[in-house]
């Protein structure tokens, strides 16, 4: 099913991650529109995703079809949602992160350069590991892109978006070039303005208790998820480092075993074998923690940001509404342009109410999704940790049995 440009290295990930669903956000999949990424190809510096759609909706020409998309086209779709005023009242599903193989590629390159300084076995082993790492990153990026599409497809309003349908169906290149320098600069300024604005707007106390509570909650939650995500990543990296050390220890023990002339040679070989196996388990533990914990936290970092953005838009519209009210009062006092002011005020009011209504629902859904996702992932994390610890224990005990029996 998956076609990657690499050898399929040793199974580095847990069995649960065969398919691309790394982060499960508990979506309700509707039979009328199902989207998934059925294939992916990794090339030099880009990834080509095959987006596969199954739909009974009338607006599509066929019931089942596939197109090839690249990362930039996902971003284009996401940005079009964000810029659409009609969607101001919804949590826009966070854009998938850019596929980043740089670190992995750098490591592979370093390995190639250092090939002369290590034994053939060491080199093959490390190469296999790096390939497995590359594969893991690849699978993850596919999963993230798929989750984005699924969230859109599951959203009652967004799924009807025209751009989305074009994205799914148009089997030519969308010619969505990446943003050029000028546009990137514009984006940068927009963000600066937005955050300054956001601070201003956040200071406005909301009459509605629900939103006031949500604002406080989201602000704090977002920061803490950010912190947890970073600390989780550091923890997992240490774990991987320790597993790498075990790999080297296994090699050294093997050398000692083959060279020793005493009874220790069998001993060393057995312990070397143990370290080799134990290391694989440790690496799996790190990988599973990455999948179930780190990715979960990263995803909710992005989602909580999207929720914050929604609140910001609502606050913005509230400020606009209040300003419109003030302007209307002024107009009435001066008895000039009253109708225009009235219309404007009506517009702002309507916009504000619409956003508030949908935002409330969105935030409630967000909580439900979050709780479900955490539950699923924490349970799976605990189960995997247990499985690995038990496996490790068994390995150790059987090895000890052999060693003690021989001495």
């Amino acid at each position, binding site marked *: 099913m998956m076609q990657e440009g690499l050898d399929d290295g040793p199974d580095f990930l847990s069995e649960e991650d065969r398919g691309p669903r790394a982060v499960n956000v508990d979506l309700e999949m509707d039979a009328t529109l199902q989207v998934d990424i059925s294939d992916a190809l990794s090339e030099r510096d880009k990834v080509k995703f095959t987006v596969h759609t199954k739909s009974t909706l009338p607006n599509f020409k066929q019931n089942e079809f596939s197109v090839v998309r690249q990362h930039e086209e996902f971003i284009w779709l996401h940005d079009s949602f964000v810029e659409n005023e009609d969607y101001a009242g919804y949590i826009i599903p966070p854009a998938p992160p850019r596929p980043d193989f740089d670190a992995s590629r750098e490591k592979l390159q370093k390995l190639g350069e250092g090939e002369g300084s290590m034994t053939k076995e060491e080199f093959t082993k490390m190469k296999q590991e790096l390939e497995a790492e590359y594969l893991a990153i690849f699978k993850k990026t596919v999963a993230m892109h798929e989750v984005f599409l699924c969230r859109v497809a599951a959203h009652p309003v967004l799924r009807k978006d025209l751009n989305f349908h074009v994205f799914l169906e148009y089997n030519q290149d969308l010619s969505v070039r990446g943003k050029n320098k000028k546009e990137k600069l514009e984006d940068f300024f927009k963000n600066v303005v937005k955050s300054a604005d956001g601070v201003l707007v956040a200071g406005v106390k909301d009459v509605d208790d629900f939103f006031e*509570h949500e604002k406080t*909650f989201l602000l*704090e*939650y977002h920061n*803490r*998820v950010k*912190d*947890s995500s970073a*600390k*989780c990543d*550091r*923890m997992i*990296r*240490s*774990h991987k*480092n*320790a597993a790498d*050390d*075990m790999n*080297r*220890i296994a090699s*050294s*023990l093997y*050398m*000692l075993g083959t*060279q*020793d*002339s*005493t*009874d*220790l040679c069998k*001993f060393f070989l057995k*312990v070397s074998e*143990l370290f080799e196996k*134990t290391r694989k388990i440790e690496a799996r533990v790190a990988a599973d923690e990455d999948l179930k914990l780190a990715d979960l936290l990263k995803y909710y970092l992005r989602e909580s940001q999207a929720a914050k953005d929604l609140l910001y838009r609502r606050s913005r519209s509230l400020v606009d509404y209040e300003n419109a009210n003030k302007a209307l009062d002024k107009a009435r006092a001066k008895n000039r342009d009253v109708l225009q002011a009235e219309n404007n005020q009506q517009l702002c009011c309507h916009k504000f109410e619409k956003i508030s209504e949908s935002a409330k629902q969105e935030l409630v859904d967000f*909580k439900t999704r*979050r*709780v479900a996702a*955490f*539950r699923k992932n*924490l*349970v799976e*994390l*605990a*189960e995997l*940790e*247990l499985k690995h*610890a*038990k496996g*490790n*224990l068994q390995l*150790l*005990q059987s*090895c*000890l049995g052999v*060693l*003690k029996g021989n*001495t």
Partner: protein
Amino acid sequence: MADSIRDPPAENTDFQELEDGEDLLLESAAARESEPASLPAVDISTKTNGPKQDSLFDEDTEDLFAEATEEVSLDSPERDVLLSEGPSPAITPITPPISVITPRIGHAHDDMFTHSSFDEIEEEEGGDSFDIHISVSDPEKVGDGMNAYMAYKVTTKTSMSLFRQKDFSVKRRFSDFLGLHSKLASKYLHIGYIVPPAPEKSIVGMTKVKVGKEDQSSNEFVEKRRSALERYLMRTVKHPILLKDPDVLQFLESSELPRAVNTQALSSAGILRMVNKAADAVNKMTIKMNESDAWFEEKQQHFENLDAQLRKLHASVESLVCHRKELSVNTAQFAKSAAMLGNSEDHTALSRALSQLAEVEEKIDQLHQDQANADFYLFSELLGDYVRLITAVKGVFDQRMKTWQKWQDSQMLLQKKREAEAKLQFANKPDKLQQTKDEIKEEIEELEGKVQQGERDFEQISKTIRKEVSRFERERVKDFKMIIVKYLESLVQTQQQLIKYWEAFLPEAKAIS
């Protein structure tokens, strides 16, 4: 090398013929020489001393050799080399079971050691079994400021009659240990005994302790040192010869020990040591020995390889220790962060679960810390000890080279003198002639003696080294097996704890609704 078995020179009264045809050595499992008893044996009865005689029939070899039958079978190549005749030394140590030299005599030990054979002490039947346990504990800071030092309690528990009591302790400081090692090295290294090296000095570590920093790193330093000192003492007493050395016994037993100032790095003795080390290194490069014994060449190569491999393994294990400590720190930080996240989560059940996760991670971080300690104190220190021990082994091989060189030098000098004598025969100065002739004759006689002595020394050291190496290898096998098994058991414990923690967490996670 020695071409034939020859009678010992008359000046040395220690040697006597052994009439008894019994080969007592064959009773012990480590029979080395299978020579019949017609060879001269060493009888050191004249030098026996006091009431401690019997205890010297220490049969710790029983212990070692009992296990050795598994590891070094009688058919093993190592054994074969020992049993083979080839260029083996002339003197076979077949002892009458009565008298044995006691090394309690401090003086003139050089002579005793070269001429007597400690083989008897090892290969005797009967006597105490090796039963001694030393622990180093209770580090206590004595004094203040830069003159402060750590005093350690050295407790010996033993049933051996070598000691005055069964259970006793003394207070010692680090320089005392270094002093002990320095004394043992000066006595035994040059005749081929592998003296276990003392733990290394650390100026940085000690300064922190002196200055009074009561933080974790200085506590760790003290613990590391305490553990190293304990291992050092145990290794030293496991050596059957060293155990009976009067300096060792004094170190363990007497309450007051003269301060060993010569161990300070910047003392005159310290500087002399450094100079000697440098001189040795240069000499080693210039000595080209004709190795006629393949065993030595093979063993030297073996130890070079072993050294390289152990260093590599040691480096990897040190890296593991470091990363595991990092993991522990990072896990602790994540635990705190997760707790904060749990606090801000407004869904009650999820909030509780996150707090539980934080607790689990906190326990796990402690687990990682404990495991890192096991990694270090069991695995890493074992490797470090053996890297240092192998340096001592290499040193002993170097001593053999030096001994050979000395012998060769004497031989060359003798040759020169003989040539000079021959020249004189054809000279035409009758008055001076007789005097010079006599002088040269005297010198030649002296040199002949030296040459013989040199050859004997060389053979003796070669023999000693063979025994020492085989003992060393036996100990190495024992050590590694025991400690690695212990280390694996620590890993087992960690996994069992992990299982406990995650099993406790799982229902909490499932309880999120």
